[in-house]
């Protein structure tokens, strides 16, 4: 396949897009990236690096960038290009966490320094930059990536050079790498609890599944459909629209005809705005008893673009909402707004990104070392009682045990939490019977 030839680092089957608005230009860019990547490869290998002084040897036996009083980590997100819209919040959260950890005295007595690289919404660039962070900068951990496509692009590099990636986005699952800690929810955690809730509380019997046309919505809807059918209920429609689609009138007519109890929507990016505006214009009032709209793709960040008045009354199933009422979250929201401005909103992924540095710190301290292998061995079972979402714990499979909440969208663009699971949901990236 052509893709394979021009991008040696990414197997063709792995080009998975999580949130992507415009694809056609990639072909153009990819060509030039290929040239750049080749040109860079040689000097990169030749670069020498400063090895930490002997004092640091006991906590660092593999030559990571650790000195007697500092440790260097990497932040790798898109701050330019299409994805900047989503990834900016994650960068802000990670910087805030690092600043707070440093104010508490750092990790193993060392202050965290970060090197920030820009993935530029371009998957080969992510691969290139992650290699730079691991090989040149010898960072002890990387906090980064957002789309599944970017994660898949850097995965072989993290596995080859044995790095540690903390990945914040909720995603479709079907992955488990020794070199990644997934701080967002995988698909089953988000989906099962949401559907159970809507069945129990709203007496839903008929579902209409809707999504943008790429792997995350399709995988998620597959899981949702299996679960709905397992409960003995009915899926009356399943529809996908291309990324960036702006005309939803036809599907809205279909929804009106099929009269589902629940519209299960996994629309992403700019399409979201079009979908909710047109739903409202077509006279489907989400604040009414039926149909209920349940989404797993709209966080507070997206509502900024959609407008609270267009989505008020919709429900979202996620692990975090800015309005969560607990002391941890209160402190987090306050600190976040002090650092990044009072008008800012915090979505699910932003909070998950905030967990990354804290989970890494806890694992390093448990291991008593920055060595990647020791941190990995120490990670399962790490707990975080100070997480804004409440208590979380790392599972053997590198995902987090976390609660799932249902939020009701308000006029002001915030969610009101109406339900949370009593127990932590077990992460299950390879759900049996759902594939």
């Amino acid at each position, binding site marked *: 396949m052509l893709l394979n030839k021009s991008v040696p680092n990414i197997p063709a089957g792995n080009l998975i897009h999580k949130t992507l608005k415009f694809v056609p230009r990639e072909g153009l860019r990819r060509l030039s990236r290929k040239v750049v990547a080749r040109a860079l490869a040689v000097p990169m290998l030749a670069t020498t690096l400063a090895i930490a002084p002997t004092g640091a040897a006991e906590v660092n036996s593999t030559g990571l960038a650790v000195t007697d009083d500092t440790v260097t980590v990497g932040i790798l997100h898109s701050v330019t290009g299409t994805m900047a819209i989503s990834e900016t919040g994650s960068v802000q959260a990670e910087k805030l966490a690092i600043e707070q950890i440093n104010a508490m005295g750092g990790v193993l007595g060392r202050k965290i320094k970060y090197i920030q690289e820009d993935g530029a919404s371009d998957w080969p660039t992510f691969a290139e930059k992650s290699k730079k962070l691991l090989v040149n900068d010898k960072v002890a951990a990387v906090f980064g990536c957002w789309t599944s496509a970017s994660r898949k692009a850097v995965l072989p590099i993290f596995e080859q050079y044995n790095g540690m990636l903390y990945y914040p986005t909720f995603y479709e699952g079907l992955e488990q790498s020794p070199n990644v800690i997934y701080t967002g929810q995988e698909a089953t955690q988000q989906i099962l609890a949401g559907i159970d809730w809507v069945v129990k509380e709203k007496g839903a019997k008929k579902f209409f599944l809707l999504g943008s046309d790429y792997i995350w919505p399709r995988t998620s809807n597959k899981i949702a459909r299996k679960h709905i059918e397992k409960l003995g209920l009915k899926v009356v429609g399943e529809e996908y629209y291309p990324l960036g689609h702006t*005309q939803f009138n036809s*599907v809205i007519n279909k929804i*009106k005809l099929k009269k589902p109890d629940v519209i299960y929507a996994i629309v992403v*990016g700019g399409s979201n*705005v079009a979908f909710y505006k047109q739903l409202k214009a*077509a006279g489907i009032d989400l604040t009414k008893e039926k149909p209920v709209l349940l989404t797993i793709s709209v966080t507070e960040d997206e509502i900024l*673009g959609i407008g609270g008045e267009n989505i008020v009354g919709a429900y979202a199933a996620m692990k975090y909402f800015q309005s969560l009422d607990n002391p941890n979250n209160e402190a987090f929201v306050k600190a976040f707004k002090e650092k990044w401005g009072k008008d800012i909103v915090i979505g699910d992924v932003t909070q998950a990104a905030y967990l990354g540095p804290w989970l890494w710190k806890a694992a390093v301290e448990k291991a008593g070392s920055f060595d990647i292998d020791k941190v990995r061995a120490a990670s399962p079972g790490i707990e975080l009682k100070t997480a804004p979402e409440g208590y979380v714990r790392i599972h053997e499979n590198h995902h987090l045990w976390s609660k799932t909440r249902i939020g009701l969208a308000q006029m002001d663009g915030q969610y009101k939490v109406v339900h949370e699971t009593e127990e932590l949901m077990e992460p299950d990236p390879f759900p049996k019977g759902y594939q």
Partner: protein
Amino acid sequence: MFADYTAAELTSIFAMQGFAGLILFSILVLMALGLAIIFGQMGVINMAHGEFMILGAYITYLTSNLFSEHAAALFDGYFFIAMALAFVATFALGALVEWALIRHLYRRPLDTLLATWGLSLILQQTYRSVFGAREVGVTLPDWLMGSYPLTEMIEIPINGIFVMVLTLLITLGVYLVMFRSRWGKQVRAVVQNREMAGAVGINTEKVDRMTFALGCGIAGIAGSAFTMIGSTGPTSGQLYIVDTFLVVVFGGAQSLLGTVASAFTISQAQSTMEFFLSGSMAKVLTLLVVVGILMLRPQGLFALKIRR
């Protein structure tokens, strides 16, 4: 698939689906008119067309903020002022771009493609720096939202009606300007034979600048109207550009009537198929049909008959 529904339900759904097709038709025409003028009449491949539309959307956003803060009483009417401002701003930017960039490239059509593509990247990054990377939400006056219930099943979206009326007015306006005014006659003369038009005393440079600016201005109005149905973000313009070119090329680049006819064909095909198939399949089939027809008729639906 219709066995489960009553005749009344089906009638209303088909009525609404027909209406959805008409709305899509208006949107495509509105998107494509500006480009039809620029690409069709001047031969400039304007890749920044989407960004001109988004400039219009951002102007609408600014106007809406201004009104809600300083003149809340007049908020209901701000949309018209926003559209006028959007036209003025994009018209001015269009004239500037023509003067600084496009006029040097008239004899090199492929270079205009690259230059305007670069321009689109510059504009996107400018929007990102000025308005932030996140999409902005444009608040609409209440009367533009919601729907008008005709029967129990049939509900007519008000913003759909608004877009249709607007499209009608603008198409009419463009028709009058192009075919009933002295200036339009000059434009058509320049399109048909630039040298000869210059020889009989038409200031072709000025005609070019105004034509380009007019095309951009219409894009601005379209962008302003689309805040009602779509997103406003730095890269939102990219969502429209492919469809826009599709409509213009399919209709026959030099014919404005062709653009309208092509928008009608594409929108009706698209919305009918969307109803019976999934959204992605409908898009694929629409594109296949368009490609097929263009293979048989490379000049598009309507071609201008002139001696070269």
